[in-house]
């Protein structure tokens, strides 16, 4: 039995950030991660946006919150931020829930910079009714990982346990006892559940009320961008459209689309997918494996996403398929209508403390400061 001040479940950004904050206070921290290294799922496998709110033209609260943290994140993690491109947001002329004028007003209300450009500079005639030069960057998850690992290595009271398989979580007087499949037991008076897609699995083990979420098995496509496209990131709003933008500092572009990025959707409490039985691995609704490392990952939807992008973008913006990344993404059911992505922090118990955090954005990680 090992005793800690805090146990953090999940070595994504939220987990490692918390470990660093607490470790610097000389607390004894254990991070439990089921993968062999950190940042192997959502922190790495997403569009790598450092949000300033542009993405949420129907949820000004989400927009303002991300705008508030934008500067701070870019300052704190400057080394992993890619600023070397022009980020263009455009509103589709058809099927968009917001038009160019509404987007402009939204940016003004949220206090985020946006300069109107001529849509036909980038898009085929008639496809977009507004194009805006915005200020949005992308981060490089691998550089961020190296930074956090270096910091954590310097803190001798912080330990990360990889390949961790949790069997049970129980409250015993003033501590939580986490029993592992290998028989080891860890105790702490403070548990932080930062398992993202696995959040309900952990809540299930601890016997707490679960988040109302749906799960999407998502594909992020990495592309080699042609010369003209290299210096741009494009996002077409606000409906069944696409984004193609630099993927951190990797030199590649990520391509995603609202309709084709999710391959499968699951509405159960814990992530159950039909592919889970076939992988041969230990993936199940109660212990989600890593889709990106799985042999049963879906076939790429590149032809579909590419055709969608080609339909909009002018012909000089070319790109070619490199590879795909897959991961499961949880989406709060309450945010279906306004498409908001709130950071939800729930405290389930005090002394011993059990907290769960669910967020779809990287730069709202600072919200955790209140509870750590």
């Amino acid at each position: 039995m090992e005793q800690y001040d805090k146990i953090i479940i999940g070595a994504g950004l939220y987990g490692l950030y918390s470990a660093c904050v607490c470790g610097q206070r000389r607390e004894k921290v254990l991070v439990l991660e089921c993968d062999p290294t950190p940042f192997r799922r959502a922190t790495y496998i997403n569009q790598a946006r450092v949000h300033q709110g542009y993405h949420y033209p129907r949820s000004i609260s989400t927009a303002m919150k991300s705008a508030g943290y934008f500067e701070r994140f870019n300052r704190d993690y400057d080394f992993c931020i890619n600023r070397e491109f022009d980020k263009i947001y455009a509103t589709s002329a058809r099927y968009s829930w917001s038009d160019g004028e509404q987007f402009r007003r939204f940016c003004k209300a949220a206090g985020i910079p946006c300069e109107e450009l001529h849509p036909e500079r980038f898009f085929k005639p008639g496809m977009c009714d507004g194009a805006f030069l915005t200020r949005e960057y992308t981060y490089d998850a691998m550089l961020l990982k190296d930074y956090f690992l270096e910091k954590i290595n310097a803190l001798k009271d912080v330990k990360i346990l990889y390949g961790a398989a949790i069997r049970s979580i129980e409250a015993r007087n003033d501590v939580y006892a986490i029993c592992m499949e290998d028989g080891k037991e860890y105790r702490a008076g403070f548990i932080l559940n930062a398992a993202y897609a696995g959040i309900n699995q952990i809540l299930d083990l601890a016997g707490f009320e679960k988040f109302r979420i749906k799960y999407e098995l998502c594909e992020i496509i990495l592309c080699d961008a042609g010369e003209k496209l290299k210096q741009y990131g494009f996002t077409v709003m606000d409906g069944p459209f696409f984004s193609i933008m630099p993927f951190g500092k990797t030199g590649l572009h990520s391509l995603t689309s609202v309709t084709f990025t999710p391959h499968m959707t699951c509405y159960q409490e814990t992530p159950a997918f039909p592919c889970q039985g076939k992988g041969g691995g230990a993936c199940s609704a109660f212990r989600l494996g890593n889709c990106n490392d799985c042999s049963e990952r879906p076939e790429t939807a590149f032809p579909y996403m590419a055709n969608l992008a080609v339909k909009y973008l002018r012909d000089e913006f070319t790109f070619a398929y490199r590879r795909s990344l897959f991961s499961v993404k949880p989406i709060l059911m309450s945010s279906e209508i306004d498409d908001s992505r709130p950071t939800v922090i729930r405290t389930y118990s005090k002394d011993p403390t059990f907290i769960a955090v669910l967020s779809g954005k990287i730069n709202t990680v600072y919200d955790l400061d209140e509870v750590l």
Partner: protein
Amino acid sequence: MENKEKNFVSAVIYVHNAEHRIASFLGMVIAVLEGHFEHSEIICVNDGSEDDSVGVIKREAGRADASVSISVVNMSGFHGLESAMNAGMDLAIGDFVFEFDRTAPDFDPEEIMRVYDRALQGYDIVNAAPDKKEKFTSRLFYRVFDLFSDVSCKMHTESFRILSRRMINRTASMNRTVPYRKAVYASAGLKADTVMYSPTGRGGEGLDRRERGYRSMLAVDSLILFTQLGYRFAVAMTMLMMLVSVFMIVYSVVIFAAAHPVEGWTTTILFLSVAFLGMFGILTVIIKYLQLLVNLVFRRMPYSFESVEKLTK
């Protein structure tokens, strides 16, 4: 094994109260696309169906393999064929897009590929029309349309067609709205062709009352918007009436001189004739203005071209 086509095709299918027909129709389209294309999508536009069409589509879609992406656009209420198909076309992402206006197939599944192959030979739009006698009303409509429009393109009653992306972009930039697709396609000025097929007789339109009403309205609107019919009729009528007015002026003067009519008759008739002459003159001007306005509002591009050829340096 046959090599599948690399081109990405979309199929847009119009669905209105078609729960009895849609399953077999969709099944056929899925089979053709799966069999011949590496990647494709099907968009079913549900135009305010009151039956279980969407339920049937969902069940049928479950059987498709991963190479066909199937989606449904649910229109908010009945919009009619043209708007609904436009909505579907706006969503389609294919290099080539099939438009299925009807879900009652009277053609062999092979016809779909015949039309596609024809498009590959350099036609931006290829129609598939049944090789049978058209309904009287349809024939009348197309005759009148042909007579009064400046587009020289024979139109038929068509079952489905294929459009190239170039064609779709062209129509999108030509008109602000597309009230009648066929006319817009015909006036787009790109290469078009029609493939005739012998109907298998399974067809049968199966239009409900709402659709029939919509179609007659559409016919009138199209004739007004796309042909010179309204304008020519109005001009002819005003000319005729102006002539009658002039005749009346002359007539009243002659009667005044020769036959000594009742007092006041000549002034009344003279006044009326001059007033009508002026009225019709004003009407002609107004109609001309209206026609110009329709063109300004409705058409975006002043002209359309088929291609540009460079002959010498």
